[in-house]
């Protein structure tokens, strides 16, 4: 794999060198958007390049999020890094700690003399990527949040309403199964949906030090009785197939689109895929609430990725990066991106534009994600997460949760083990950033 990285980095460097003769300044943009979204990324870059002739943004697909981040890091170590790289939200702490490697976006915009007003952006979206002092480190690009998707036809046939509480989820699942469905509810990205967002939604702390925002010496607290009770209950719902586990990430999507499970909790960004695959009427609604824990939901947190500028480029290139960021944040581009993909718009103007274009009227429910994100002013528990080594920690949480669904542990055991293994990784990270 290393050979691959240096190979592509070399190729990138060569293209850079051969095109230096032209007046255009090239800006390399490494991203992780495959398939249809990859085509959309190419379109954004091509459209930007067509608006002016000084800069040329060159997007290249580098595999999934993890692969893209690893590729960028390997390239940085070989001094062949791109100017812009797309990094997923759990990589934030790692990127942030790499002080000499990143160029904070807010700083970059200022240095390049590009007008930039943070208040244009949705607070719930950018709060995840700010320093404790409020400096924006990276530019949100594709952000989403988990919602509850449901099979409208199946719920109607079973005489059930869309659920708003966990008690509803259970009773609706029962009705669905009684009405001949194979399972009631399933979900994907379980750490993100069932621990990170469940905690934020009920304003529960996931780790000390404001979920890691206030310092690297943070410890996990998600192994509390409240989360454990919810997970134990879900595990018991496997009896009678009210709940079925369908794998990590989006692996459980076919369970929903094939009509096996009537409800599915996962990212709002599955809108495009579901629309393509589902042969039934579907809709989305807000995440269910545990009435015993909160009378009203707090707000959900985002997932997805942001664009980071890496240091080591020329001033000219960073001017190009700044111009591109401005273009990317423009209401028209954002509204188009949001309506095509199901990712949330990053600026208030783009949200307003989508409203006036009548997008939400003709596609009811598509604003669920934005409503969820901006329900309340984010608290330290619902602003986001900043844990180092979080990529590995999510895997640990996945493993422990799988042990719970598999029946080899109960929720308390699984969460305690996840927290203690996670803490070990946090300490390891704390050491490397010193």
């Amino acid at each position: 794999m290393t050979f691959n990285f240096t190979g592509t980095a070399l190729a990138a460097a060569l293209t850079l060198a051969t095109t230096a003769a032209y007046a255009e300044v090239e800006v390399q943009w490494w991203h992780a958007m495959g398939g249809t979204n990859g085509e959309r990324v190419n379109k954004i870059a091509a459209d930007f390049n067509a608006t002016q002739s000084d800069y040329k943004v060159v997007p290249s697909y580098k595999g999934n999020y993890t692969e893209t981040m690893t590729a960028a890091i390997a390239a940085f170590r070989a001094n062949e890094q791109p100017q812009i790289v797309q990094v997923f939200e759990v990589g934030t702490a790692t990127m942030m700690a790499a002080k000499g490697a990143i160029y904070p976006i807010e700083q970059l915009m200022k240095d390049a003399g590009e007008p930039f007003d943070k208040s244009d952006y949705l607070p719930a979206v950018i709060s995840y990527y700010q320093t404790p002092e409020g400096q924006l480190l990276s530019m949100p690009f594709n952000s989403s949040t988990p919602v509850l998707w449901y099979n409208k036809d199946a719920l109607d046939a079973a005489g059930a309403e869309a659920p708003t509480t966990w008690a509803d989820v259970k009773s609706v699942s029962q009705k669905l199964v009684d009405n001949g469905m194979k399972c009631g509810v399933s979900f994907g990205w379980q750490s993100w949906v069932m621990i990170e967002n469940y905690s934020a939604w009920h304003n529960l702390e996931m780790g000390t030090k404001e979920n890691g925002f206030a310092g690297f010496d943070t410890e996990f607290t998600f192994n509390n009785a409240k989360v454990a009770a919810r997970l134990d209950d879900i595990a018991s719902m496997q009896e009678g197939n009210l709940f079925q586990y369908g794998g990590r990430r989006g692996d459980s999507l076919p369970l929903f689109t094939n009509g096996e499970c009537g409800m599915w909790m996962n990212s709002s960004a599955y809108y495009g895929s579901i629309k393509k695959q589902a042969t039934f009427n579907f809709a989305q609604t807000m995440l269910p609430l545990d009435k015993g824990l909160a009378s009203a939901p707090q707000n959900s947190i985002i997932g997805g990725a942001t664009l980071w500028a890496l240091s080591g480029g020329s001033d000219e290139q960073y001017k190009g990066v700044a111009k591109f960021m401005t273009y990317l944040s423009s209401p028209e581009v954002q509204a188009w991106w949001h309506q095509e993909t199901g990712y949330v718009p990053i600026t208030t103007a783009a949200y307003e534009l989508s409203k006036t274009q009548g997008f939400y009227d003709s596609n009811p429910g598509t604003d669920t994600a934005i409503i969820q994100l901006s329900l309340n002013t984010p608290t330290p528990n619902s602003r986001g997460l900043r844990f180092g080594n979080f990529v590995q920690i999510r895997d640990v949480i996945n493993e422990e949760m799988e042990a719970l669904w598999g029946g080899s542990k109960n929720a308390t055991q699984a969460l305690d083990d996840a927290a203690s293994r996670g803490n070990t990784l946090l300490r390891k990270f704390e050491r490397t950033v010193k």
Partner: protein
Amino acid sequence: MLKRVHFPSSPLPYLLVAPQIIVTIVFFMWPASQALYQSLLIEDAFGLSTEFVWFENFAALLDDKQYLSTFWRTAVFSSLVAFLSMSVALILAGFADRVVKGATTYRTLLIWPYAVAPVLAGALWVFMFNPTLGIFPYFLEMVGIKWNHYLNGRQAMGLVIGAAAWKQVAYNFLFYLAAMQSIPRSIIEAAAIDGAGPVKRFWTQTLPLISPTTFFLIVINVVYAFFETFGIIHVVTQGGPANATTILVYKVFNDGFVGLDLGGSAAQSVILMVIVIVMTVVQFRYVEKKVEY
């Protein structure tokens, strides 16, 4: 005193072995020494801060229950893959050796899977065994087996073992068939005249005579199961569920390239390196003595 050199030395032999030496140094010794060095460091992903910690990465690994259980899992995985693929190949080769008509077609078909890349082999099995869409879970459900390798660690392990062994059968088949065909017909015929049936001949004549091949294949298959099955595991299970299919080499990848823990990952690869060296030495010193050439 005799002169130490009787013949004028020529640079030619050095020149002739130079390419081999250079390739070994550049592609084997250098990366290995880098891994050794890296395993003594704790470093952030970008390489901005580096701390030399001696053997702390190793100590942390030996302290980690998860890591220790990976050893056992790798042992089970490798021996089952080697045993399964070799025994199936042996049976197939035994039959192919006796086929008179259409032997070439039969052999060609059996060799096909070897041309399939591990990742593609994995992808095939993923589709066939997808709990929702796959054809096998559909059949299994008819006989009352609920298949969900996303949740059931044993099923996941069975799946990757099956895929890895299937992929290797063709290779083993090729070697077994060649070995069987090199056995002088006269020996087999003599046994047949003495009244030994096909099964008896197989056990008492063929099997001992192809033991060097078996020995060679054991070495190759164990190394295959240790390293080359990575692609299959990556595609089929990504080491899950709950680590049930994480073997040593997959953990090296996962900690290093996904988790960006370079020191820990390098330490694991050093341990892996030592295991392979020890295994090879043991195989050649003890097992080989029992083989009749």
